[in-house]
């Protein structure tokens, strides 16, 4: 009986085909997700310009429509918050492409959120709005120890956001994306710990705090 050595090279070909197909599919999925994020950013950018203009328009010409501007601002906050979560999910599933592929998108969203925060401060002053700005500063690349802390605080903040709805403007901002504006904010508020919560630009809560504590501070900051 002949030893069937041909199976070795045939198996090699099958392996190469299956592997290339799998990697191509994986790569295609990753690329299409990055493309998806980039496309959505364009939409968000337009929406942001629109929301900003609405704010200016209502404040300058129709101050009685402040409520609409605030509502638009809140809707936009939800939108960019969800986009942030989506980027995080996509990034976790991004195994083949360069891990910095989404860095540019994350930087753009971080800047957008910072701009949005400033607009929220401005809107609050102009419209005498009653919402509380809650900034959540975190690390985009946390260590194994920092990540569970961030997860815990983000869950607490999510619960508070669900509870207070329109009365709370939750804005998560990453600290480690090497952006000049964010670096300035870091030194202004002396942000050295992750996670840190900044309530109405006045109260700073570093590291872990219970839901009750954060809630109490939100009440005190009004």
């Amino acid at each position, binding site marked *: *009986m002949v*030893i069937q050595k041909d199976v070795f090279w*045939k198996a090699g070909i099958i392996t190469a085909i299956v592997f290339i197909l799998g990697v191509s599919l994986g790569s295609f*999925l990753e690329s299409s997700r990055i493309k998806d994020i980039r496309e959505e950013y364009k939409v968000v950018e337009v929406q942001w310009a629109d929301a900003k203009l609405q704010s200016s328009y209502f404040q300058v010409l129709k101050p009685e429509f402040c409520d609409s501007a605030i509502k638009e601002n809140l809707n936009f906050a939800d939108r960019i918050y969800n986009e942030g979560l989506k980027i995080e999910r996509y990034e976790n*599933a991004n195994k083949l492409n360069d891990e910095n592929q989404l860095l540019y998108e994350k930087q753009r969203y971080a800047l957008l959120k910072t701009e949005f925060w400033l607009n929220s401060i401005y809107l609050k002053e102009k419209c005498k709005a009653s919402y509380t700005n809650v900034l959540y500063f975190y690390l985009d690349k946390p260590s194994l120890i920092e990540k569970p802390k961030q997860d*815990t605080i983000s*869950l607490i903040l999510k619960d508070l956001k669900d509870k207070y709805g329109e009365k709370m403007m939750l804005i998560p901002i990453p600290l480690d994306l090497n952006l000049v504006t964010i670096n300035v904010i870091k030194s202004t508020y002396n942000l050295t710990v992750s996670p840190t919560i900044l309530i109405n630009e006045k109260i700073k809560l570093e590291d*872990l705090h219970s*839901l009750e504590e954060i809630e109490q501070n939100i009440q005190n900051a009004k």
Partner: protein
Amino acid sequence: MEFITGLYLFVIIASIYLYSIFLLLLFKNWKELFTYDLSKENLPSVTILIPAYNEEDTIAGTIQSVLDLEYPKNKKEIIVLNDGSKDKTGEISNQFNGIKVINKQNSGKADSLNYGISIAKNEFIAVVDADCYHEKDALIKVMNCFKEDPNIEAVTSSVRVKNQETLLGKLQFIEYTLIAWARKLLEFINSVYVTPGPLSVYRKKTLQKLNGFDKNNLTEDIELAWRILRGNHRIKMCLSAKVYTVVPEKFRQWWHQRLRWDIGGLQTFAKHKDTLGKTKFGMLGVWVAPFYLSSFILALLGFIVWVYVLGRRFISKLLSSFYSIETNSFVLQFKELHITPSIFTIFGVLLIITYLIYITFGLKMMDPGKIPRTRKFTIVLYMFFYLALYPLVFIQSLYLFFTNKLFKW
């Protein structure tokens, strides 16, 4: 690309390659898998050696099973090698007629077998463990395989599990069935790398030429098979010749047995490492030794990936739970379900599905009929828990092997 991703992809490539080899061998040799010859013409004479050490619980059943084997009586010699048993193995064996019982001082299985070979009268030697039970036509099927090719130096049988009452027994039933199935496929590339104790037959002149079994090896059956292959000879496997063996029912015994197998495998590999990659040693050099080495490396790498991924997740969840308690928030949160497939998921799912098909198909081929519902549950346990124990045993074996802490049995 992260190092762990690269490692994962390497494990994936190697796994796909191994699967592909088995699949190709299966499709190419579909019709030959269960073929056998039951003719009684020109059957050679065979000496059946039963080495036994403290086997009072099973020896009678084994001897009776060997006596009942369908084979011309004048061509069958049965020798029980009582290796200094401290129980009633010798007394029980002496109660049977038509067999020879040699009571000797304890010197180990390999040495007992070598003694048996030296006194055997016949041209073929069958080795039978003292806790095995054979189907009546098993020996005749095995012996007829030698007729195919004079270069066949050994023929092994399909080892199945007798005691399937416990969960461990059920898991080993799946394992042994799949091993038999895979071993048959390996025959087509002359890579049957073990001639297991429950029933393997050798040409006596080959055993004499090779100086019998290695007394210093914990798995003398693996080591002998490697020496046969080293000489470019063939080992055949008769899938339809069934032998039922008693497997460990307690986890501790199972672990102990697997340590012995792994250490014996390492001893064998160390002894024959010079064959690695060399064509002059036939399939031993180009496939069996590399396959053996790569399966160990794959198990270790797979284990590292598993520990890294699950370990990180475990630490993260543990700390999250700790922080949740500290902050008086909910430990468990029902987040929205988002499925974002990565390359890990694609290949992971592909491998799990392929292996599930392989297991189901293998079990169905070996035992035609519907797979019972309880066995389906055992298959899941086998895939996700039982196989995960292999690298753990191997790590301890490596430690024992390299620290020379080889224990006595």
